[in-house]
């Protein structure tokens, strides 16, 4: 799992059937200090995250299992909204 910040919405009318009613969000990956790392990515939303929320997301086969209908081609899925990240004791 990785941390990321929601930086935008992606609206898509024509998409694979199994993505119907799934919200797509633009995510900026973050490191543990919440600093931006790498390029933004698009992820499926399962937890009604909004702009500027810090979220954690999973990739690979687990991304598909995160959605209600498992038989979907999701590559990244948001699994939860982060309230707080504390580093050290």
């Amino acid at each position, binding site marked *: *799992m*990785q*941390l990321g910040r929601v930086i935008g919405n992606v609206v898509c009318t024509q998409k694979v059937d199994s993505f119907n009613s799934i919200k797509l969000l633009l995510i900026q990956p973050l*490191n*543990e200090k919440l600093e931006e*790392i790498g390029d933004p990515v698009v992820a499926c939303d*399962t*937890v*009604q995250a909004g702009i500027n929320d810090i979220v*954690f997301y*999973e*990739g*690979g*086969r*687990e*991304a*598909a*299992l*995160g959605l209600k209908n*498992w038989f979907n081609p999701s590559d990244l*899925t948001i*699994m*939860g*909204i*982060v*309230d*707080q*990240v*504390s*580093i*050290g*004791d």
Partner: protein
Amino acid sequence: MILGKVIGNVVSTIKLSVYEGYKILVIQPINAKQEPQGKTFLALDTVQAGVGDIVLVMDEGNSCRLIMNNTTAPVRTMIVGIVDLIR
């Protein structure tokens, strides 16, 4: 499985229901000399690890689903042991 050091924790209220009841910790992967190596990531905790512990991290989905006894859990990374000693 890989070795890592727990460097922090993540608090999340709104998450998928299969994640409920599990702690989420921030892991820094380490090499055999216990030096940090590579990017940090998050893992679910099953062994009550804490900040500063060297841990054994399972980074494979089916193994995690087996541990959780749930064939459809969307979980790939899990802490499965606390390391006492690396010789």
